[in-house]
């Protein structure tokens, strides 16, 4: 399942689409960046409410497929610019972290 397919199926708002054909290997949820760094796996869809520039750095360094901001969490312009530079796809959902992650997991 690719990030663009997930965006459509799960009705996610696209804030930045970097590589539409990038495959998703699974779902990872956490907001503490060091735990994310230690445990997230390559190719995951990362569901979080943490929409700052450091989230983008973490997603890029850990080779994630995309970030999905849950609960309608905001992302600032600096972070979004960084996402474009670093080729990180950023999607957004109004639903909670659990509901968002479950929907993505079921769609995979």
């Amino acid at each position, binding site marked *: 399942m690719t990030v663009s397919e997930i965006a459509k199926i799960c009705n996610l708002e696209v804030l930045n689409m970097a590589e539409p054909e990038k495959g998703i290997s699974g779902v990872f949820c956490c907001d503490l960046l*060091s735990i994310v760094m230690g445990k997230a796996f390559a190719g995951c869809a990362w569901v979080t409410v943490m929409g700052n520039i450091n989230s983008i*750095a973490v997603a*890029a360094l850990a080779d994630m497929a995309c970030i999905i901001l849950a609960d309608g969490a905001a992302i600032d312009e600096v972070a979004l610019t960084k996402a474009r530079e670093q080729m990180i796809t950023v999607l957004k959902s109004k639903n909670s972290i659990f509901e968002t992650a479950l929907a993505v997991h079921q769609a995979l």
Partner: protein
Amino acid sequence: MSNSLHLSYKVSGDDFTRAGEASSDLKAKLKQMGVSPEIIRKVAIAMYEGEINMVIHANGGTIDVEINPQEIIMILTDTGPGIEDVERAMTEGYSTASENILSLGFGAGMGLPNMKKYSDDMDIKTEVGIGTTVTMKIYL
């Protein structure tokens, strides 16, 4: 020494908008060199944690990287406050980070444990009031 490549990075203190730049640059260079994605991921994660530690605790520092046919060596040097109790700092979940740091998503007390987890060899030399040098090696 013709068989090794040396890189040097300066990490600014207290600047979270730039934290990760050194790790990103090294990651890109390793990719160009054809290093395997698994190794690159280990290097990127270990070095990013080190970079963040320098930004949070030590007002920045320097990172020297050596890449040779056998291994990637990262030496992170700062002149920060030093680590009072290394064993405790190595414990998962132990953190001395402020509220401000926590609000950025850092400070989970996983920095040093993650650095150890993702490097094949790690050595910490620290002196309170003088600074800290962390040497991490990842074998190729």
